[in-house]
């Protein structure tokens, strides 16, 4: 038993962190409203060349051959660096296509030739996901997207974005992403994978939780740095308990979610009965941690935190968006309560 990353896993983390900091510095996002195209096709292909999009896919499916743990570690770094959720669309889409036996499509997804947008059921609308889909959906990052990934507890599907009736791009709470609505009436999908074969919805839940952890950790780190520098009343504000205790609360949330992410990536991969229990617990905790930490970080940064000159607000907004993907807090808490006790 050793819950910490191995040396090899730590290498994945370090490589990802330094690549992202060099290639996609967060300050590029400042003052660039609606940069839905932050990841151009060339960028996506460059990321694909690192093998990231197939990191958790077995080698027989032309993946890198790592498991969910490595995939999750990568997504923590993507979340920390505010990389767009469509990368999750590519990873899950590639897996879906591969497991459905559509190897050509899988290859172009893993190579980054195709952009996959994520869609969720519109609140209050009855949606049906199967060999065809119906209902009203919210689509994140529709701009230049080729395919759409939809998933629920029953299964997951890929379909061409063009086959849906989409509205004009709407303004998204997260100005670095776009959002639009789409209505589908029995639109046939390209491929559909029932959850019995591979639970893509819960895998997405775990990977979004990893991105939320990245946000929780990034906002803690920024707050601690700021609290060590900013002086008032002749002292750095981090010496005041009011600020110090906020930071301690943020740190506890990071520790709790990181522990749960590691634990869940193992139990879920092993298809242990605890996998679902852990995934639902994880998502609820990750949403709370990311939102508490990002929101508190604004308060710690004071008036400057409220401006667009700093990047904290981007984390606040992204935490809200990620919270809606693959089931929100209430969804997962309700589901968790229905699960039997685990050891």
């Amino acid at each position, binding site marked *: 038993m050793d819950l910490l990353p191995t040396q090899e896993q730590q290498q994945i983390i370090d490589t990802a962190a330094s690549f992202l900091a060099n290639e996609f510095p967060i300050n590029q996002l400042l003052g660039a409203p609606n940069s839905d195209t932050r990841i151009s096709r060339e960028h996506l292909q460059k990321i694909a060349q690192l093998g990231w999009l197939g990191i958790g896919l077995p080698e027989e499916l032309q993946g890198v051959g790592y498991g969910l743990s490595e995939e999750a570690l990568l997504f923590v770094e993507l979340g920390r660096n505010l990389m767009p959720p469509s990368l999750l669309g590519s990873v899950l889409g590639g897996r879906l296509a591969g497991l459905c036996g559509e190897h050509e499509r899988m290859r172009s997804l893993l190579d980054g030739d195709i952009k996959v947008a994520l869609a969720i059921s519109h609140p209050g609308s009855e949606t049906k996901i199967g060999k065809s889909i119906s209902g009203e959906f919210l689509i994140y990052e529709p701009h230049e997207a080729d395919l759409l990934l939809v998933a629920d507890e029953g299964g997951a599907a890929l379909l061409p974005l063009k086959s849906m009736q989409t509205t004009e791009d709407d303004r998204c709470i997260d100005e670095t992403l776009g959002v639009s609505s789409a209505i589908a009436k029995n639109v046939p999908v390209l491929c559909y994978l029932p959850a019995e074969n591979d639970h893509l919805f819960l895998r997405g839940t775990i990977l979004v939780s990893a991105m939320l952890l990245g946000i929780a950790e990034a906002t803690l780190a920024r707050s601690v740095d700021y609290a060590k520098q900013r002086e008032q009343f002749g002292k750095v504000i981090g010496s005041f*308990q009011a600020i*110090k205790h906020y*930071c301690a609360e943020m740190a506890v949330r990071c520790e709790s979610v990181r522990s749960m992410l590691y634990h869940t990536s193992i*139990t879920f991969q092993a298809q242990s009965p605890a996998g679902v229990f852990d995934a639902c617990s994880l998502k609820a905790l990750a949403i709370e941690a990311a939102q508490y930490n990002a929101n508190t970080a604004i308060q710690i940064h004071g008036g400057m935190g409220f401006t667009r000159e700093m990047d904290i607000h981007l984390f606040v907004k992204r935490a809200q968006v990620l919270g809606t993907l693959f089931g929100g807090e209430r969804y997962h808490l309700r589901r968790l309560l229905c699960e039997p006790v685990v050891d």
Partner: protein
Amino acid sequence: MNLDFTPQQLQFREQVRDWLQAHKPSEPRPDDGAEGRAFDLAWQKTLYTGGWAGINWPKAYGGQGFDTFQQLIFLMEYAKSGAPGDHYRFNGLNLAGPTIIACGDEEQRKTHLPPILKGDVIWCQGFSEPSAGSDLASLKTRAIVDGDELIVTGSKIWTSWARFADWQQLLVRTDADAPKHAGISWVINRMDNPGMEIRPIHDMAGGSDLHEVFYDEVRIPLKNIVGGINNGWRVSMAQLSFERGTAFMPSQIETQKTIEELIELARNTRLDDGRLAIDDDHIAFQLAKLRAETRSLLAMTLLGISRNERSGMPGPEGSMLKLFQSELYKRITTVALDIVGADRARLSGLTGRWPQAFLGSFANTLGGGTSEVMRNIIGERYLGLPK
């Protein structure tokens, strides 16, 4: 990252399980202090005879010398088996004993460690004082060197089970002129030493396990100083990291049991509007959140153990666990009151344990370092924020 146990470890788990099943006491622990003491000591003797006492203590002093994973497995199985909690044995097994192992000399180890494991003695703690609570280092109880003895005068407070203890780990000021952290010594004191007076404190939950202890020129041999004179602060800091490390593992599994029992209660309790408590959204979401948090407590413990195993030393992360767990337990008991509704007024009967647990829960975020002290430690030692 893995959660796997080796075949040997799994076999060890079976052994622990079987032994506990066959030997754990069938009758509940008596509430009465003297009877409780006798029960605790008898159970410790049984553990010792069976070869399960001092699982991580060196064999030379009667321990088993098990590694961290055997220790983890033992503690998990122990808690699951429903065997008696540490109760009065807590201090000797988790604080005084490990401190003497880490910082004591050979004579102190040989004298004091075996009796703890054999179930001959109960230990208690004399750290806090009326004017030195969270600011422990400002303690004033004076110890003057007189020949080969210390003469101790002052008072201590919050000493658990003092009137049922044989020995005490005591912090005294041996140098009044030194800076406050540099003039403290950690000493071993007999509880029947002349010049001591012990007064129980009656707490808000109906218990009287806490005490005030007064010292009027109490004589303690110099050889009872552990870790060197004026070095007591460092000795007690080493100790507090045991307290915030694996020592709380059993109570974490206890927390898991408690939340599951509470969910079961909510499935069977009707609210005043006639619905089952579990069908009330507000209650259901709170219960689910507590269930998720309790689950992460287990994961945090496993991560902490993995970290200690690699670094060889418990770090300040233990304070996060202590903070998280004690605050969580408090929230659990508050939600319990919501579920039992007006029955919260009754401390007896089938649901009486819940309001009783609520009353007792206030101790969790005070004892062993308040939540505020934990947040200071996390802020300063883990995050590097200035004092």
